[in-house]
């Protein structure tokens, strides 16, 4: 019964969003402003309907309504309550509903923040957003309906939620990520409104920047969470695999970063309007393309959703409509964009331009690598290949170096031209000093150094100096320093975040240790300067699984601690999952995975030491924080 209500609400929202989406056409025909004014209430109604629909899906999960196919396939009576909630977005159909809910959240937020502004502009923006909402609801209803019934025969028990998803991090990962993906629709819609109403100005840029920052922040969190989850859940100690699904999130993120940087120039100097508009279209395109790759089954990946080319065609059609449509508007309507100004090569403007170019080329290259297996298969008739991680690692390095360099000096470049170059000396000296200090520290901790580490430390020092140390040095008073820092808090946090992230990546890549060993009960193994002792095997039970765990004692210096590496057998699906034992410390993670029994009382283990790995996610969190702080400041200027 409740599922029927949910279904009806979804159909209702389809109709209302259609009305909201295409109302401007009526305004165009009748010249009656009513058709602009009516869009906002319609939009809010859509949000309400979708929200209630989502709630009814959740409710059906909580009461174990297995007559609904989606629930029967993804839930189970033994499943703990909080996972039943998460199962709502655990598979394709339900996650689409979540995506739509996120987009509705953004469009309604946009309305609330702008309801006293230019009627036409707001109406156009909301209508574009509602067209997108309409498209996705249509897709859901016609190809992926979560409310479909199995009636009249309902099974007494459901299949289970995939054990890999029965995890806290993974349950909040989709909402965060979808807020990011769907959020990119707002700058996209704003660009279209600006193009149509010919109001591409600093007001538009200021608005667009806010929503780009917000989406980017959520994408940052979603990606970081996904990486952290993969690290502790998949049992291999890896934190990034250049999997198509990961790339599908990384590419829009890169473009969103380019976008909110480019918009700074557009807002302040009226330049790069073309860039900013194109970036907003590109970002949204990347977001939908990502959705397409993950749900159409054309790429095999660790976590591809549904292998269904028919769905792929539908998403591709949505993609074509919005992206080609917006590009047509762009090509036709922007030939009279004013805003020519001269600037020097050594200037903020040029720096931001380089930033745009670098990020976009990097994004396209990553997308190319992701799609290359398809192209290859099409050309060489059926021969299957995969593009390995080394391709991406080689690719990203020069871009990371160039972008780090820009990050360090960006603050000191002047608008139009730079008159004073003293900063170069200062930053060089500061970063060199920091470089020496960090290198010594690293040498003390690890006993060795190599080129990879030097590079990472150099980039870290450069960014740190340019974005923090020099500021401190330059301020003659504490009061002045406080003001400076507060004004630029978002930027500082985000840039420092990238510095920590780069350092973490560099160190964990060069100094990780790993060994697969066979240990007898009581036996120990020395990896690096750490001793791992296999104490014993224990058996126990969880809520919906049984466990065999190995107790491992870690001894290093004065530290002695015990962790437990598990193999879980999930009862409903009979799937075995390895849960790695991780001991995190400030400077490194100790990581143990339990393998198989290889002899009497002998077990195989994979032992790893991952230095500085937490700094990667710490850096990512700083980036996200900085992004959100900047967006908060942006709202103050609205």
């Amino acid at each position, binding site marked *: 019964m409740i599922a029927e209500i949910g279904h009806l609400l979804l159909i209702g929202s389809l109709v209302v969003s259609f009305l909201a989406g295409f109302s401007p056409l009526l305004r165009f025909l009748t010249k009656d402003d009513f058709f602009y004014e009516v869009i906002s209430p319609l939009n809010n109604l859509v949000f309400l309907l979708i929200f209630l629909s989502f709630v009814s899906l959740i409710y059906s999960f909580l009461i174990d309504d297995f007559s609904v196919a989606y629930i029967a396939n993804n839930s189970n009576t033994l499943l703990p309550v909080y996972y039943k909630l998460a199962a709502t977005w655990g598979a394709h159909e339900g996650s689409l509903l979540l995506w739509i809910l996120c987009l509705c959240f953004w469009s309604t937020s946009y309305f609330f923040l702008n309801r006293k502004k230019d009627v036409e502009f707001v109406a156009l923006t909301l209508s574009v957003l509602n067209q997108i909402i309409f498209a996705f609801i249509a897709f859901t209803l016609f190809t992926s309906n979560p409310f479909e019934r199995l009636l009249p025969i309902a099974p007494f028990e459901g299949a289970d939620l995939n054990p890999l998803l029965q995890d806290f991090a993974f349950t909040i990962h989709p909402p965060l990520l979808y807020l990011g993906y769907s959020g990119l629709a707002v700058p996209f819609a704003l660009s279209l409104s600006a193009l149509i109403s010919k109001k591409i100005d600093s007001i538009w840029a200021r608005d667009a920047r806010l929503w780009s920052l917000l989406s980017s922040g959520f994408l940052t969190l979603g990606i970081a969470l996904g990486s952290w989850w993969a690290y502790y859940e998949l049992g291999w100690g890896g934190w990034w695999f250049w999997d198509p699904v990961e790339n599908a999130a990384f590419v829009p993120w890169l473009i969103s970063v380019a976008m909110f940087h480019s918009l700074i120039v557009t807002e302040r100097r009226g330049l790069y309007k073309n860039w900013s508009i194109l970036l907003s279209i590109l970002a949204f395109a990347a977001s939908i393309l990502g959705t397409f790759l993950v749900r159409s089954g054309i790429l095999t990946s*660790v976590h591809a959703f549904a292998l269904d080319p028919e769905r792929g065609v539908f998403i591709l059609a949505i993609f074509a409509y919005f992206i080609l449509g917006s590009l047509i508007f762009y090509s036709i309507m922007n030939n009279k964009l004013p805003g020519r100004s001269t600037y020097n090569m050594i200037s903020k403007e040029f720096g931001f331009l380089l930033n745009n170019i670098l990020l976009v*080329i990097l994004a396209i290259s990553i997308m190319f690598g992701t799609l290359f297996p398809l192209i290859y298969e099409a050309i060489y008739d059926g021969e299957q290949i*995969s593009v*390995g991680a080394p391709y991406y690692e080689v690719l990203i390095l020069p871009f990371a170096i160039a972008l780090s360099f820009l990050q360090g000096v960006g603050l000191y470049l002047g608008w139009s031209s730079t008159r004073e170059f003293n900063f170069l000396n200062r930053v060089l000296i500061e970063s060199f000093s920091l470089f020496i200090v960090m290198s010594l520290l690293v040498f003390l901790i690890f006993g060795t150094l190599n080129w990879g580490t030097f590079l990472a430390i150099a980039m870290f020092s450069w960014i740190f100096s340019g974005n923090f140390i020099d500021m401190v040095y330059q301020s003659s008073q504490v009061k002045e320093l406080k003001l400076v820092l507060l004004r630029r808090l978002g930027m500082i946090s985000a840039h420092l975040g990238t510095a920590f992230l780069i350092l973490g990546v560099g160190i964990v890549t060069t100094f990780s240790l790993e060994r697969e060993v066979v240990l007898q009960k009581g036996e120990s193994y020395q990896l690096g300067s750490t001793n791992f002792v296999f104490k014993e095997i224990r058996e126990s039970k969880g809520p919906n699984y049984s466990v065999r765990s190995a107790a491992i004692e870690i001894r290093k210096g004065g530290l002695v601690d015990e962790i437990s590496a598990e193999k879980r057998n999930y009862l409903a699906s009979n799937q075995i999952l390895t849960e790695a034992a991780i001991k995190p410390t400030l400077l490194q993670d100790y990581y143990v995975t339990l393998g198989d029994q*290889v002899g009497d009382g002998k077990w195989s283990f*994979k032992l790893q030491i991952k230095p500085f790995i937490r700094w990667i996610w710490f850096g990512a969190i700083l980036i996200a924080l900085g992004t959100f702080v900047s967006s908060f400041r942006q709202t103050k200027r609205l």
Partner: protein
Amino acid sequence: MHPLRKQRLYVVLSILLGTVIAALLVFKGLSENINLFYSPSDLQKAQINTQIRVGGMVRKDSIIRVENSLRVSFVITDFEEDLVVNYDGILPDLFSEEAGIVAKGKINEEGIFVANEVLAKHDENYMPPEVAKALKDKK
């Protein structure tokens, strides 16, 4: 040259430079990192001592583990040809007899596949589509 033109020239040049560098990196990276996929009977086409991927079904009763070590050998098949795979390490959870697996590694001179990675990502009874396709094509 007019300063505006000069500036635009710089812009165009830097875009071109960036693209060329990226293209070079892309092709360099790709040529070294395309891992071709073979089923056991395709292997005559493969080069020895080159990193490739192989896939097939693990033959029943073919898994041999060396006592007290992580060394294991097993046979994969596409029902036409068999291939012996040697691996030194912990096998993934979903590895078992009659499972469809993909392994990365090299063929040595003796025709044995020395794997450095064994992948069994899905449910043990679900065959990776690449493997299923390859096996299907054999019929």
